[in-house]
Structures are given as structure tokens and as C-alpha cells.
């Protein structure tokens, strides 16, 4: 690692933020034939020469294992390099050096204005076992934003802010809660008949449920929230996903008993519960319906980043998902209606399991026109022969971001900040316009609760059948091509691959039971 030579160090810069103790470190590796690595090559690398420096993947495995063993966290892995994270003291210990604070010219818009780096005269005595496996290790400098200088976004906060109970105006077509989503699924007639899901227990598992948001209070929604193992604080939701998507259930089945299972650990974003733990916790609450807007993408992916290596579907279920598969099968066999998202271009599991209701997406425009959402997944499972995903659909927006339903979220949470880049809400207003098949699953779960209130004897397969035969057919549009090896499945008259049976019609289903 080269020591830094020239860094700005002005009095103005010293007033800026402290450097992060957590370092992002790039690792390069040696090629097997002569031990040469990219940082030791005198010639400039080209796209042709770089291939000749490709290390043996097993050597990368060994190096990452050793780094992990010493306390580094592997955050990404490529064919030539890897990224790891570790704190300053760990880096100093493993690489036998002493880091100093360096500051960046504050006129530059960077991700951080101070960082740790070895000074020019720093010693460099790395652990020999590590250096025998790698070419070099570089602390990554803060990156420069290639856009006009903007105000830093606030850090995520628990739901202690005071967002308004009323959504902001965004100036484009979207669905408002709590009226538009039920209206488009033909729910108001069911409510008018006195069916609101009363007495039906719906469990939703997700990031968290910050139902102290004034929107939930203003609409007299009540809930209870339990923690899955390793989750913390049943009142907060640092991501916002669970809080926002749960509004779909309340809008459709306001009388149902809502039980949220929080999976996230606020103090440790790397921690929290697994989906299986959440599902097991859900079962403890004797649910009639379980709604899950989470899943796995069963394509060839880089396990470190989750990025796809190819769009090719897996043909067998990975061992690591067999326990979850069995637990879901057992729950459905015991009469629990289980609804999963079909995915947003994902080859989703458990969204492809035959036993569950797989919730896909239909977009209804401002004139009432229905089209298959090109954000939602549709594919034939290569694991469960003959299984077409989805079964039928809820309301989902279109690409690129599916900004479609105005949903209440904790002020300053991850989605509040990230979505503000495109949904015309602000980063801390406690509202976001989003959807995904994450919205469709709780919508369908809410409709299931309406049916179960009217007829508590319905089995999961009864409910699936009645919803299927009462859907409104969607004949135009295509689903997300990323879910089907690059070929978008098209909607057409009758049952089709893109939307299954079409858009759910709660009133038509309710009348049939």
C-alpha cells in the first residue's frame, strides 16, 4: 500500500466531520503462475492484460477466509479484487502500520471529508500469512459525488420524528391511502356489507412496524408487534419497508387483528432474524394469514453482494432453503393462508412455492386501464415443475422505481431518504411513494382476511381457488424480463404467465363464498 503524499489540511477542513472508524479496504490478489499482482506490474493495465492477472479463485477463497478469521467482514468479491471492511485498530494490527487522519478539500463534495490512511513515513509490516495470499490492501478514499453539491441526507432515525398524518403533494399520478388501493381492488362494497376482516389474525413479518406514525392513529388502526430472535425495539423501523407496506393490510382489512413480527436489529444492521425465525415466530401467534414481502433470488448470484452473475434460474432448491420450505408447507397443511411476493424481477423463493399465494403486480392508470406491471416478476419455476408465478395480482407500479402508492414511513428512515431521490417526497417527511410486489402481498393478505371473516371454514386452497376464478382479466403489458432470463412474459386474454388470473376483485370473491 502506497502511503499518501499530498492531502489538503486546511483549518476549514478540520471543522468537518470525524473520519469513520470503519474502513473499506480493497484487496488485490496474485496470479498463480508467478505471484505477480496488479499493483506490482510496471506496465499500465488494459482490458486485455488484466485477464492475464486473474488469480486462482481458490486463492481468493483462502485469502478471504484468513481475513475473515482475523475479524474483517467481506463485503464484495470480484474476479480480480475483493472488498472487505474492518475497523482502524484491526487494520493497524494486521498490516503493522499506524494510520493518521487526513482531510479533503471541503470544496470537494465527497462522501466523507476526513479519513484514516497511512502517512508517508508509516511503517508497513503486514501479517506474513496474509501477505503470502494477497497482492496488496488499499484503504478506499471517500468517493466524490459527480453532481452538484447537495445537503447531506440525515441519518436514519427511529420513528421519533413527527411526520404529518396527511401525505404530501407530489404532483404526479399515484394512489393515496387509505382509499385508492381498496377502491381499485373492489373492497369498498365488502366493507359496506360489514366485512372488514374482524376477528381474523393476520401476521406480517418485515423490517419493523413504526405504527406510532400519525397516519395509523388518524385512521384508528391498532396493532401489536412482536420481536423475532435478535430483533430489537418493537416501536421502530429503521428501513421503513414493514411500516409502509403494512398500510396495505390496514386499508383492505381494517378490522383484522394485525400482528407484526419485526426482523431487524436497530443496533446492528448486519444482524436481525432470518426469514425462518420470523416465520416460526409468526406461527406462535396462531395466524390465519401470514403475509411476507421478503425473499431470495434463485439465480446464479454473487453470494457476497447478492448481485446476479447470470439470469439463469437455479434448477434445484439450495440446501439452505429446505428448512424454510418445509416449515411453510407444514403451515399451509395446517390451514394457514401464506402469501409471498412474487418478486420485482427476482426469481423469488418462497414466492415460487406451489403451496403459497404468489402475489404479482398489475398497474392501474389514472383512467382505470389495467396493464401487467413491468416491475413485477413472472416466470415458470424450474424447481417446482409446472408452477407458474404469480397466481394473481395486487397493485404494483411500473419501472424504473414502481413509485405508485403513497405510504407512511418513519421520518428519516432508509426508504424515506433513498426514495426522495425520485419520488418527490423529502428525505425526512415520513412519507414515500413506492410499491413493488411487497405491496401486492399484504393487499392480497388483506383480501384473504375478508374472505375468512365471512367463511372461517375456507382452506388455503379454497381461498386460492375463489380468488383465481373471480379476478379481473388483464390482457396487456408484460412482466419484468429480469425474472425470466431476459424474456418478458406477456399478458393476454384468460390465464397468462404475466399476471396469472389477473387483478384480484375482493367483492366478486366475497360474493362467491
Amino acid at each position, binding site marked *: 500500500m502506497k502511503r499518501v503524499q499530498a492531502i489538503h489540511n486546511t483549518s476549514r477542513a478540520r471543522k468537518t466531520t470525524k473520519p469513520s472508524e470503519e474502513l473499506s479496504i480493497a484487496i488485490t490478489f496474485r496470479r498463480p503462475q508467478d505471484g505477480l499482482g496488479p499493483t506490482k506490474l510496471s506496465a499500465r493495465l488494459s482490458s486485455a492484460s488484466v485477464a492475464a492477472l486473474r488469480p486462482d479463485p481458490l486463492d481468493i477463497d483462502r485469502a*478471504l*477466509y484468513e481475513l*475473515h478469521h482475523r475479524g474483517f*467482514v*467481506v*463485503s464484495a468479491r470480484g474476479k480480480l479484487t475483493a472488498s472487505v*471492511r474492518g475497523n482502524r485498530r484491526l487494520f493497524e494490527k494486521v498490516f503493522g502500520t499506524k494510520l493518521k487522519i487526513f482531510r479533503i478539500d471541503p470544496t470537494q463534495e465527497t462522501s466523507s471529508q476526513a479519513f484514516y490512511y497511512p502517512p508517508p513515513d508509516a511503517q508497513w509490516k503486514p501479517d506474513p500469512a496474509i501477505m503470502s495470499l494477497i497482492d496488496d490492501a488499499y484503504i478506499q478514499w471517500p468517493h466524490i459525488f459527480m453532481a452538484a453539491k447537495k445537503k447531506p441526507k440525515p441519518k436514519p432515525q427511529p420513528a421519533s420524528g413527527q411526520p404529518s398524518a396527511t401525505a404530501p403533494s407530489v404532483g404526479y399520478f399515484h394512489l393515496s391511502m387509505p382509499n385508492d388501493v381498496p377502491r381499485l381492488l373492489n373492497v369498498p362494497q365488502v366493507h359496506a356489507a360489514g366485512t372488514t376482516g374482524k376477528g381474523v389474525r393476520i401476521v406480517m413479518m*418485515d*423490517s419493523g412496524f413504526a405504527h406510532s406514525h400519525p397516519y395509523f392513529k388518524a385512521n384508528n388502526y391498532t396493532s401489536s408487534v412482536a420481536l*423475532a*430472535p*435478535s430483533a430489537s425495539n418493537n416501536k421502530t423501523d429503521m*428501513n*421503513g*419497508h414493514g411500516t409502509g407496506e403494512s398500510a396495505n393490510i390496514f386499508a383492505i382489512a381494517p378490522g383484522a387483528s394485525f400482528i407484526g413480527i419485526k426482523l*431487524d436489529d436497530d443496533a*446492528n*444492521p*448486519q444482524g436481525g*432474524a*432470518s*426469514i*425462518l*425465525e420470523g416465520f*416460526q*415466530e409468526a*406461527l*406462535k401467534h396462531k395466524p390465519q394469514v401470514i403475509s411476507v*414481502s*421478503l*425473499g*431470495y*433470488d434463485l439465480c446464479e448470484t454473487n*453470494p*457476497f453482494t*447478492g448481485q446476479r452473475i447470470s439470469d439463469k434460474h437455479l434448477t434445484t432448491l439450495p*440446501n439452505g432453503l*429446505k*428448512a*424454510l420450505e*418445509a*416449515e411453510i*408447507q*407444514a*403451515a399451509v397443511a*395446517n390451514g394457514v393462508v401464506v402469501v409471498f411476493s412474487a418478486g*420485482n*424481477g*427476482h426469481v*423469488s423463493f418462497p*414466492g415460487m412455492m406451489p403451496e403459497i399465494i404468489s402475489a404479482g403486480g398489475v398497474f392501474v392508470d389514472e383512467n382505470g386501464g389495467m396493464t401487467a406491471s413491468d416491475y413485477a416478476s413472472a416466470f415458470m419455476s424450474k424447481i417446482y415443475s409446472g408452477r407458474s408465478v404469480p397466481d394473481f395480482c395486487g397493485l404494483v407500479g411500473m419501472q*424504473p422505481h414502481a413509485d405508485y402508492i403513497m405510504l407512511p414511513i418513519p421520518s428519516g428512515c*432508509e*426508504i424515506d431518504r*433513498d*426514495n426522495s431521490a425520485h419520488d418527490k417526497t423529502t428525505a425526512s417527511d415520513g412519507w414515500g411513494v413506492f410499491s*413493488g*410486489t*411487497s405491496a401486492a402481498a399484504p393487499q392480497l393478505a388483506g383480501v384473504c382476511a375478508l374472505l375468512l371473516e365471512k367463511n372461517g371454514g375456507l382452506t388455503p386452497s379454497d381461498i386460492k381457488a375463489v380468488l383465481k376464478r373471480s379476478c379481473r382479466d388483464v390482457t396487456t403489458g408484460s412482466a419484468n424480463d*429480469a425474472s425470466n432470463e431476459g424474456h418478458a412474459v406477456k399478458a393476454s386474454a384468460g390465464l397468462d404467465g404475466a399476471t396469472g388470473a389477473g387483478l384480484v376483485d375482493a367483492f366478486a370473491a366475497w360474493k362467491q363464498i
Partner: protein
Amino acid sequence: MIKLQILVRQPWRTSEGIERVRELIQTIGIKPTVSGRTTLSAEIPEDSFEDVFKVPVTKVASRPPSERDFGRSGGNISDDLIIPEPLRKYVENISVASPYFRM
């Protein structure tokens, strides 16, 4: 802690069978967290993992929302795990809980 998922063999998918597995895993340093009808979830300290399963485990960082999802959880990944000897009669499959997407 590393999160583990344990699938119980068919004849033992009863409350007694689940309880038996719960007791057994604790004898080899695995702590149960919650169970269902056919499975148990559990945790094992990072420094014991390789002693028990003979393969390494790697931590995977969580990721914020992207264009196609609302973030990915953190977790761990490993090669397929060999079921430790004391559990083989009762357990069909053990795995590390891997990261998932918010869709």
C-alpha cells in the same frame, strides 16, 4: 452469532421430536432461538462454528435499497454443512441463514 436453520427428520416432526433436537443441539454448543412444526432456528458463536461444522463461514454485509428492492439483510454464507454425529438420527438438514431481499 451465526444463525442456523435445522430441519427435523420426518418421524421426529412432533413437539417431542422438536424438543429432543432442542436438547441435543445444546450439548454441542448450539443455542436454540425459536421453533416451528418441522424446524428449529438456532445460533452458534462464530468461534465455535468451524469446530462443529468443519467448514468456514463468511459474514455478508447488509445493503441499502436499490432499483429492484428495498434492501438486503445481512447474514452469513457457508458451504453445505455436515450434520454433526449426535444429531444425525433426528436432523435432515442444517444450514446457515443467508441474507434475503425486501421486495
